[in-house]
């Protein structure tokens, strides 16, 4: 272990207050959109369950804000369960959320592919089985990890945001549980991501950075838990970094000249927007080189790793169906349009 001298500088009261107070702040800032179940650390869409609408429940460790709580609202999630920082929530939370939002048409669990998330959602589904119809979609869009016998499978990262938006639109439009599930699966199947970090981050309860990175190095192929990536490289111009992220995505998606994508450049939390647009510019240039059309874009901090500096790229192959659901009205704390 590298010893470290960095002290934790965070805008918090106690370490244990972070998640509850952040949820309370979300609720106070958006009372028209969400209601906080403080006991269960669940963010619920304001106005209670929608009769006849398939409900979407997601959740995971905290520290990825605005994911997931910032995506609760019209056209996206009905509930989000917040675990401790980088720790999957417990089944009791998902059980409470699932019961709270069920409008009789079934509930879709959207789960990022991490052992903890998968197991806790699985236990939750068992807890309500026979009472609420639950379907589960596990997102696994991270090309940095091989989906093989030698790993826990690809991680769910940026594609999760797109799954929540697009499946949410399908549910809002009256889709059945099977249909909404199929849409979520389709988005996940057509989305790939890869990320990089310039710095680590500090899990508040740990109090020290998860890893130490020399001043002239970066991590390529990170996830969203402040963990080191697949490999360490010397710092490089962003044009080169963008190529390291875009190439594996394009290859894995087998994107062809003439196809159209949604290009999503996501900040990890500590990267300023001025840099994120430089990164987007680099990504746009690489896609143009390859004759891939950018039909929709998203640039900003949407799935983060606390205060980590870095970014990820997600590409989603678009067709008319997905484009239409992407464009459909959404009104949540973090994503809003057409309403």
């Amino acid at each position, binding site marked *: 272990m590298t010893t470290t001298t960095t002290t934790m500088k965070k805008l918090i009261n106690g370490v244990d207050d972070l998640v509850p107070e952040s949820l309370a702040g979300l609720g106070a800032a958006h009372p028209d959109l969400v209601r906080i179940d403080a006991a269960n650390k669940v963010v619920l869409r304001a106005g209670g369950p929608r009769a006849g609408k398939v409900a979407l429940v997601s959740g995971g460790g905290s520290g990825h804000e605005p994911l997931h709580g910032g995506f609760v609202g019209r056209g996206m999630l009905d509930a989000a369960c917040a*675990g401790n920082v980088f720790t999957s929530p417990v089944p009791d939370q998902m059980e409470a959320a699932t019961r709270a939002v069920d409008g009789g048409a079934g509930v879709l669990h959207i789960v990022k592919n991490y*052992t903890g998330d998968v*197991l*806790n959602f699985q236990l939750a589904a068992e807890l309500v089985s026979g009472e609420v119809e639950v379907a589960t979609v596990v997102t696994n869009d991270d090309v940095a990890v091989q989906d093989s016998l*030698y790993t826990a499978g690809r991680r769910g990262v940026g594609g999760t945001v797109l799954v929540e938006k697009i499946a949410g639109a399908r549910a809002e439009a009256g889709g059945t549980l099977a249909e909404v599930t199929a849409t979520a699966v389709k988005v996940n199947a057509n989305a790939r991501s890869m990320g990089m970090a310039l710095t680590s981050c500090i899990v508040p309860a740990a109090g020290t950075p*998860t890893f130490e990175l020399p001043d002239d190095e970066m991590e390529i192929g990170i996830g969203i838990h402040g*963990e080191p990536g697949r490999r360490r490289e010397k710092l490089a111009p962003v044009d080169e970094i963008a190529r390291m992220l875009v190439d594996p995505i394009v290859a894995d998606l087998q994107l062809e000249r003439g196809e159209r994508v949604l290009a999503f450049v996501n900040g990890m939390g500590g990267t300023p927007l001025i840099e994120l647009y430089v990164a987007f510019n680099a990504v746009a240039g690489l896609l143009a080189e390859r004759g891939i059309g950018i039909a929709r874009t998203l640039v900003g901090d949407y799935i983060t790793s606390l205060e980590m500096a870095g970014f990820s790229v997600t590409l989603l192959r678009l067709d008319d169906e997905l484009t239409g659901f992407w464009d459909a009205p959404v009104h949540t704390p973090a994503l809003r349009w057409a309403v």
Partner: protein
Amino acid sequence: MIDTIEAWFRLSAERIHEQARALTVLDQAIGDGDHGINMDRGFTAIVASFAAGRPAGESERGIAGAMVRLAGRTLISTVGGAAGPLYGTALMRAGGIIASSEPATPAAEVVVSALEAAIGGVQGLGKATTGEKTMLDALRPAVTAGRTELEAGGNPKAVLEAMAEAAEAGAEATIPMLATKGRASYLGERSIGHQDPGATSAALLVRAMADVVADD
């Protein structure tokens, strides 16, 4: 047996609290830096739950088993992450074995069978096998060593001591392993050279049981 179980949970909680930072540091190296924090929260909750009194039950074994099951449920409800469901399910399965054991079956034999069931729970949920750099790499050698010592006619202290030593050796043996399950697997080759946090906490728990039995 009830008192032994309670003493085990108390000693485990104490040691996990002491080792929380060390477990978290292990998890920072190949995971996400929360294992010690998570385990500490869970075992603190188990000990806190003792204040509510012991579960109802007809027999010593029944009550002991119910305590273990309840502790498992507490872990599931408070730990989260991978360790919560895995350790929680492990304890629930172990509790079931204890509760249904014949009064005549020797305690050490029950412990080994309970751990066997616990491992079954972990494997059923986590789909891992030994050699993948997980808690199983501490638990499986422990059960094997316990069974061997039992068959050799060892007394309870010897059985538990053999289990603890095997678990500790197993945890250490995860250092050169390439992780193929859990978060550490994302690191590929970079997971090599670090001890698995879950295997480390597992060895700690088995060691605590051996020490409680040794103190009897």
